[in-house]
């Protein structure tokens, strides 16, 4: 069975898109067919990490929601550019990115007119089937909106990303409550951008008891990530970095339970 994983953070700047992209690349490297869809229609960003410009894709998620294309037509195969040496015909690994539109007018139109959330779910289900995905990662908009709630509602796993920051902590409580109302089967937290010198054991325990939800990893704030500045996939550039190892452990948890 294919698995849908949503990553979410209540506020921007938590490293959500970076983390999602890295988890997806690592999952693909582990030999799976993986998709990432950018449902952050208002402020799309995942394309940047895969260096996709407006000229690299003909259709976006917006086009699908307007009925201009089938969802799989909006999928860009980024296997070669993000994983490297893979046989053209190989079934696995394979990595697809489904971007949101980068055009101001199209972003404005979706915000103005809205769309049928049921159709978004149809698109997610069609992606799983038509691209024969093992895993579909959904990069959601920060905060709570319809795309986010739908993503949580259809997910098998929800990953919440927080920084060690009181505003993040309070906002995340809202998401946790909504996720429980939506009966998401599995949920865990990643604490990201933790500065050196912080007592990570105490932090982990604090967050865990705050939400009654597991903290799967505590990821350090590192200069290399900051310097990469979302121009590349971190785990590709720094394959032996401790952060890459931590992300690989999280990936193993996601794909390990569902080989």
């Amino acid at each position: 069975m294919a698995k849908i994983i949503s990553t979410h953070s209540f506020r921007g700047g938590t490293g959500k898109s970076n983390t999602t992209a890295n988890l997806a690349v690592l999952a693909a490297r582990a030999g799976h067919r993986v998709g990432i869809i950018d449902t952050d229609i208002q402020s799309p960003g995942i394309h940047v990490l895969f260096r996709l410009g407006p000229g690299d894709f003909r259709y976006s998620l917006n086009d699908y929601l307007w009925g201009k294309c089938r969802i799989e037509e909006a999928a860009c195969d980024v296997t070669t550019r993000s994983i490297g040496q893979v046989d053209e015909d190989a079934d696995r690994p394979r990595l697809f990115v489904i971007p949101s539109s980068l055009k101001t007018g199209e972003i404005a139109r979706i915000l103005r007119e809205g769309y049928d959330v049921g159709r978004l779910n149809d698109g997610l289900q069609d992606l799983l089937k038509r691209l024969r995905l093992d895993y579909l990662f959904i990069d959601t908009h920060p905060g709570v909106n319809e795309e986010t709630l739908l993503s949580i509602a259809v997910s098998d796993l929800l990953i919440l990303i927080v920084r060690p920051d009181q505003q993040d902590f309070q906002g995340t409580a809202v998401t946790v409550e909504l996720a429980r109302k939506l009966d998401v089967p599995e949920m865990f937290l990643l604490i990201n951008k933790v500065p050196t010198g912080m007592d990570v054991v105490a932090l982990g325990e604090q967050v865990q008891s705050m939400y009654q939800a597991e903290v799967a990893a505590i990821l350090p704030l590192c200069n290399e990530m900051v310097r990469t500045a979302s121009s590349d996939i971190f785990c590709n550039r720094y394959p032996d970095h401790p952060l890459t190892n931590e992300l690989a452990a999280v990936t193993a948890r996601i794909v390990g339970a569902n080989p």
Partner: protein
Amino acid sequence: MSGTTRPDEIDLLIGKMKTAAAPLREVLREIHARHAAVDEGQVADYIPELAKADPHWFGLALATSDGQVIEVGDCRQLFTIQSISKPFVFGLALEDHGLEHVLSKVGVEPTGEAFNAIVLDEASNRPFNPMVNAGAIATADLIKGRDFPERVTRLLAMFSRFCGRDVYIDNAVFMSERLTGHRNRAIGHLMLNFGMVGERIADSLELYFQQCSVLVNCRDLAVMGATLANGGVNPLTGQRAIEQSYVKYLLSIMLSCGMYDYAGEWAYRVGIPSKSGVGGGIVGVIPNQFGIGTFSPPLDRKGNSVRGILACQELSHRFGLHAFESGFSGPTLRDLLAPPRQGDLR
């Protein structure tokens, strides 16, 4: 989402998302895709406005009695309600006059005659039932109001309560209906001859042509069905559209007479109280559970939407929706709407 969001708004939003994510959506898409491929039937062409419909249009919508709506296909395309208006206007007549008076003017017996037959019950001079044209005209004649505009306003207000939005008349269809409605005028005058309708029959015929020309979409039909399924209260607006005690009288007449001269076989095979119209719509009601709306203009020889019939039939068989189904062991629509989700919530 602002800090002022009320808890019930959150529940509504959560419900909407659960419905959008429900496996039932996939099932409806699959049913829709299969029957969309069916290429049979003829679009009604007795007036030019109806003949303009695209034969590919096909919508399938389901609304729960607690207000969740699933729409697949062309669910927002407007079309004229036509005969689907009949049970609803019958409901308004019941509210205006009570059961006994209404039954003295129109019967509730199924008839094997065509819907537009010029025939009355010989013993009582009543039309056989409110779903044939004669009965629907007699029913329209019962709608109260100081004058004609007020009667139209009350009629539209009733449909608006059922749909949960303001509805309007398609003027081109209305004009065509009244220009070509000679047969219906003949029926009206026959009833006038027998004293079954009053002197205002000319107005009542106009009202009847108006009621047939109300514009709805497939989603509206599902919501109208869900309102009946919910004891007469529109589950989207919380507004009462008809008195609870009359709902059963609408549903029983829909089950026995709702599908033109296919009604008997429909009650037997499908068993869902339903009403179809030559505009291509069908409304179905699963009491206490769901309203079903289908829309596809190509009609079979009895005047029912071909794809609509197939979709309702499949829903009924797969999910045990027949009114007299008992001991059904398969999955129900409800199971697919809110499935137990696997896994432990940590």
